[in-house]
């Protein structure tokens, strides 16, 4: 089997691909406050067309407060999953805002920027919610093997 190459040309716009391939980027973790709310900051670095971290891990379902910072010289947005309705924030160049989300766990969710210049070219992030369902939602059976 040939060695795995890092292929940095995938991690940029107009490298191998036209845009930046979806789902690439750094991994970060939200911090849980004493109030039970999970918080994280997500930035959009200049000319990278990526949310950073691209994959945000939160320990369990609940309320998540995001600080969203656009450090880019172009305008973007974030269309974020949340119970109730999708949440939308417009992020002009060099702007900062917040989003409060309610997400169940376990499972993961995609979000992205739907501005006309962005879609398909990058700026797609994931929120990964860990944990288990509460005991009352589990099946009454002995523990089963998992992959």
């Amino acid at each position, binding site marked *: 089997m040939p060695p795995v190459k890092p292929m940095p040309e995938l991690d940029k716009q107009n490298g191998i691909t036209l845009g930046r391939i979806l789902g690439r980027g750094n991994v970060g973790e939200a911090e849980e406050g004493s109030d039970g709310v999970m918080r994280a900051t997500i930035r959009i670095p200049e000319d990278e067309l990526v949310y950073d971290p691209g994959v945000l891990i939160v320990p369990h379902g609940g309320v998540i407060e995001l600080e969203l910072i656009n450090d880019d010289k172009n305008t973007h947005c974030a269309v974020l999953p949340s119970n109730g309705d*999708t949440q939308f924030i417009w992020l002009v160049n060099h702007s900062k805002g917040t989003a409060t989300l309610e997400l*169940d766990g376990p499972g993961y*969710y995609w979000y992205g920027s739907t501005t006309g210049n962005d879609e398909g070219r990058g700026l797609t992030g994931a929120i990964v919610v860990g944990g288990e*369902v509460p005991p*009352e939602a589990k099946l009454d059976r002995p523990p089963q093997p998992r992959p």
Partner: protein
Amino acid sequence: MATEYVDAGTAIPYAALSASVGKAPPVAKGVNYDRILNARSEPQNWLTYYGAYDGQRYSPLDQINAGNVDKLVPQWVFQAGNLGLRSGATTYAWEASPLIVDGIMYVSGWDGQCWAVDAANGNELWRYRHASPFDVSLCCGNVNRGVAVADGKVFMTTLNAHVIALDAETGKKVWDQPYGDVRAGESATVAPLIVKDMVIVGSSGGEFGSRGHTDAFKLETGERVWRCYMIPKPGEPGSETWPDDGEAWQRGGANCWITPTYDPDLNLLYYGTGNPCPDFDGGVREGDNLFTDSGVAVDADTGEIKAHFQYTPHDLWDYDSVMEHLLFDLDGQKMAAHFDKNGFMYILDRTDMSCIRAAPFVDRIDWGEVDEKGNVTPLVFPDAEGDPVHFWPGPAGAKEWTHACYNPNTELLYVPVQDVGATATRRRREFKESIPYWGAGVAVDGEDQTGYVSAYDPRTGQERWRWENEHCMCSSLLTTGGNLVLGGEPTGEFNAWNAETGDQLWSFQCGSGHHSSPSTYSVDGKQYIVAPSGWGGWAEGFLPKMLGSSHGSALFAFALPD
């Protein structure tokens, strides 16, 4: 460049960037058990999943009738659309049955969506979207079959196996109760049913080796009232039909992913249960495997199983029996009619679930023989590892989950039929939570398929008429006091037939196939027929020839011209 960031504010709900009103009239406050019990006495509404507890999918409305249905025209269209990456991205379908309460429509879509819509003009009043994990294990696509309404709330299930209550005026969540384990391959697609002060739901996940169950929760708070498992534990009644030295019962299946019907006099809920797991590999689960592939009567107050009839003991063909049990009284007898995936129609005595008669309703059946009392002799089935075996009907069934109907005026049952086979090749695999557990490779026939709508006499089991179609018929049927049967085709046409003769009277091309349950209602004296159009789901399982068809996402409301 300024060093201070521009204030982008706080993210807002997407609906705020639309014409959605954000509020609906308080019509749902008055919906209670008594009104649902007598739902057919207010035919302007469609108050519960089947229109009434008996599951007949019959409306006495007759403004639109066999004499004028050819003049039917669209009044409005509600478009759901799509946004971003979502669960089951290519498997979504619009499978719901819209409910209507005093001019307001409540309808669910795929991916956790629910709307309140003005039933007279199609304007969106509010929307709710439950965020659905992208990676939830979906048994048969990204679908939801509808909502329930009572006590000022709208109830729905979510892909990640929650049951939620929404404020019917605002669409805001009131309570949220998880009742399934997504790590165990469970999900939820069922339309809830209101009985007394409870909301009743069931589990999906029949291809993932779960242990099927139905659950009841209090309307007001979401507090659990009972849970009923459809696979007994060792020592419980029915456990003798599972290997006593193994783990098969723990992964046995029998999910309840279709809404039960309900007889208030007997206080019994009538469930159809799903396939056993693994679907096609019976060698790891010797025995009849109760209560898989069964009609099961459950006490509505306690969740206790009172009686059952098993349609396909020791299933090796994926013949779920989840589809409805239509309740009606005929010649003084309390009956339940059930059209099974296995190709046979059953008329049961619903007081004890004994079989009155069984008869075939599809032309091609070779998996086995079923006598008139429902006794089964298997003939063709996957047995040896790696040997392909072809059988009719395929795992889609001669009738899928989509519903039959019964018209008390004609005293006939109407059924959408799929005449298609499949080849299964047994491939044993070990069980792991959340991984599909079929025990075979399966390919449903592509070209060699056909379908029809048939009318059956429940007294004799004889077919009265048949309307033949080029493709399998995969939409629920609706019948009315206007001597009509209505339903959609996989190719997008929505049709009306004469209930007595089967003559096709009208058709309208909706642009995407029908895999849903149409409803009817009236507003200010004007009758409407509403049909969700949105092809998809597990089409590779029931009509692979149409897998490439346009998905669509539109809700059509038809009426006569003013």
